[in-house]
Every structure is written in structure tokens, then in C-alpha cells.
């Protein structure tokens, strides 16, 4: 299992891997927002938590394409399906690797980009905590989407269509927690809901992903 994790991480850091792509996308989206909505500081600070969450979500989505597709092409996936390691565990590891290479950098980058968007001072903690809690769910749900579309040529757009509705609850609770925190309110309730979704999906989604992958590769 650890070998698989290390292999995935190493592949991601190498050229052609997804690392940095999501981060760059996140940076560009947040930089473009003030150009499109105007530079008023109060407007920016009120939408900053939502923009950061949306940017992180889209950056996550962008890198899902590579999560299983490359392994499918070179045959690694067939090996994983037949390997003694349960497929559920293998997919959890792959989701973890995706989170470490995409979600975690986004969490770390969010406060820096928050400065650009004039995020209120008391919002930084909430944005970081909510993203840290929420992005694992995005990776795990994304793995399910990637597993559903793995055998389909040009499945990227289809995967976005399938995954985006599944992201709705995570986005609502995550962005709500960040928004309430930034507005100086107590965001504990949505944060707890977000934690519930994250742990629930981590516990259950790998089974769905593995089931779908077995069906798709049969």
C-alpha cells in the first residue's frame, strides 16, 4: 500500500504529472476574479470565501482526469484489479495521493490568494480549516467519477458532468462555513456537516468506486 502511495506521488511530481497544474489553475482563477467583478474591496472581501472554494473545487476537478486514466492506458489498473490488495484499499490510496498532490497544496495556497481577494482577517482560519476538511471529500468523490468514466474515450467532459452534482453538498457546507467565519459569525454547524460528509464519503465511496471499476473493466 505504501509502495503504491509512493509510486503515485512520485509520478505526480514528475513532469507530465498533475502536480502544479491544479495549483496554477487555482492561482489564475483567483487572479481573474477581480478583473471580472471589479476591484471594489468590500465586494471582493464578501465573495472571497466563495471564490476560494469554487477555485479549489474546479482545480480539483481539473486534475481528476489523470487520476485513473494514465493507469488505465498503461495497464496498471488491470494489475491493481487482480492484485491481492483489495481494490477498495488501492482506490483509497489513489484518492489519498490525489489529495496530497492537489488538495493539500490548495489548502496551503488559499490564505495567500485570500490576501489578493481582500479576505477579512478572521476569515483566514475558517477558509483553511474548511478547505482542509472538505478537499478530501472532493478527492474521494472524484475517484468515483474517474472510475465511472475510465473506459470511455474523451470521458473528461462526461466526468465533469457526473461529478459536479455530487460536489454540491460539499461545496455548500464548505463555502458556508468559510463565509460565516469570514463574516464574523460562528461557522461551527456547517463545518461539522462538512466533516460528516467528508468522513462519510471516505468510509463509503471507495466501495462504490471499486464496484464501478470492476464492472467497467470486466
Amino acid at each position, binding site marked *: 500500500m505504501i509502495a503504491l502511495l509512493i509510486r503515485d506521488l512520485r509520478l505526480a511530481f514528475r513532469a507530465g504529472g498533475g502536480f502544479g497544474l491544479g495549483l496554477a489553475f487555482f492561482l489564475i482563477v483567483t487572479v481573474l476574479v477581480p478583473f471580472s467583478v471589479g476591484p471594489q474591496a468590500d465586494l471582493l472581501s464578501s465573495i472571497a470565501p466563495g471564490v476560494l472554494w469554487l477555485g479549489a473545487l474546479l482545480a480539483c476537478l481539473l486534475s481528476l482526469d489523470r487520476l485513473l486514466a494514465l493507469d488505465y492506458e498503461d495497464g496498471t489498473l488491470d494489475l491493481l484489479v487482480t492484485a491481492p490488495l483489495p481494490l477498495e484499499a488501492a482506490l483509497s490510496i489513489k484518492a489519498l495521493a490525489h489529495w496530497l498532490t492537489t488538495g493539500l497544496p490548495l489548502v496551503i495556497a488559499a490564505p495567500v490568494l485570500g490576501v489578493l481577494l481582500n479576505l477579512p482577517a478572521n476569515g483566514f482560519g475558517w477558509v483553511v480549516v474548511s478547505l482542509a476538511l472538505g478537499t478530501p471529500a472532493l478527492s474521494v468523490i472524484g475517484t*468515483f467519477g474517474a472510475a*465511472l*468514466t475510465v*473506459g*470511455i474515450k474523451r*470521458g473528461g467532459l*462526461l466526468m465533469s*458532468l*457526473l461529478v*459536479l*452534482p*455530487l460536489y*454540491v*453538498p460539499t461545496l*455548500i*457546507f464548505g463555502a*458556508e462555513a468559510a463565509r460565516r467565519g469570514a463574516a464574523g459569525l460562528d461557522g461551527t454547524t*456547517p463545518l461539522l*456537516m462538512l466533516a460528516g*460528509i467528508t468522513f462519510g464519503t471516505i468510509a463509503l*465511496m471507495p466501495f*462504490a468506486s471499486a*464496484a*464501478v471499476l470492476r*464492472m*467497467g473493466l*470486466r
Partner: protein
Amino acid sequence: MSIWQYANPVKFLALSSRVQPYLWAAAVICVTTGLLWGFFGTPDDARQGSTVKIIYLHVPAALMAINAWFMMLIASLIWLVRRHHVSALAAKAAAPVGIVMTLIALVTGAIWGQPMWGTWWAWDPRLTSFLILFLFYLGYIALWEAIEDPDTAADLTSVLCLVGSVFAILSRYAVQFWNQGLHQGTSVPVATGGRTVADVFFYPLLVSMVGFGLLFLALVIYRTGTEIRLRRAAAMRARTGRGA
């Protein structure tokens, strides 16, 4: 004799061709009665004026939009557990009907909302949930279209339907949490125990709801028959060695 004998495609086709004329006739009669009664035979509401007549389209369509997804969920479960092809094909056949019902509910709601709420669209929990439901239908249909092998497609869409249902319910609660709405409570008494619609409006609405239900049933049975025939034709072509 059990209900499972209709899982046999031949028996299903025989039964469906026997009941379909009645079903279509009943559906057409109920829908036209409900709509004509509602359109011509009911007074204007004191506050809503004549826009109250939109209810005879909006509520039945919304009801069937949810029920269609529910039916797809059950059909998907039956396919996953008992592997009856008819079940999988029925789920496939229901999805386009469901998406059209969702669209009707959204469009009539927007047309009604413009004069009544002063806006075409509000990010109200019910409206938002329907929009999300629309996206789920879209994804489901797109996944069916994208996969070539029919059994794999049935498997994957079934799991998507299951997982999607869980997330649809989650979204519903998330959206309620996120914004308290403008939308009035449900008009269907079984759901609330009390009735919010006066009798003059309610009886034609009931007829219209029954009509939409029958129409959905007739459409799904007909479309399932279509899917069965297409599958059989493809299988025959494959056997005789000529690609369809």
C-alpha cells in the same frame, strides 16, 4: 405466478401490448380532463389571478420528476440484485421522461414566478433542488449514451443512480440549510397531512396528477419495449455475423 415472470422480455412485451391501449387511453383522458377542467372550469384565485391555472401543469410534472427518479432507483436495484434486463432497460427508458418532467416543472415555475414573486428564478431550496435533479438526469443519460457495451452501461448507470440518490438527498438538506425559501409548502395532502389548496382547485389537480402518472407509465412501458426490440435486433445481427 409471480411478478418476476414479467422480467422475461417476451412476456413483458406480450403484457405491455395488451395493457398499452388502455393505459394510453386512460392517460389521455385523465390529462385532458384535468387540464381542460383546470383551464376552463376553475375560478381565478383571489391573489394569484389566473396564474393559478399553471398549477395543473407544475405540480403533476414536479411530482413525476421525483417519482421517475425513484422508479429508476428501484429498477436499478432490481438490475443489480436480480440482473433482469427488462429492469435495466426500464430505468434507461424512464430517464428522458423524467428529465422532460423536471424541465416542465422548472419552466412553468419560472413563468409563474415572474408575475407572482417578481422574478424568474430565485435560489430557493425547492427550485435549487430541482435544478440539481436536472443535472443528475443529464449525467445519467449522458453515461448511458457514452458506454457501448449495454450490460456495462446498465451496471455503471445503476450504481450512479444509487450514489446519485444519496447525494441528491444530501443536496436537498444542504440547500435547505443554505437558504430558506420563498416557495410555498407542498400542495399534495399525503405528504403533509393537511391540505393547502381549496377544493375547487384540488379536484382538477388530482385528476391531472393521476393523468401525468398514467402518462409516465405508458411512456415508460412503450419506451422499454423499444429498448428491448433494439437489443434483440442487435443480438440477432451479431449472431448472423453482420454488424448492426
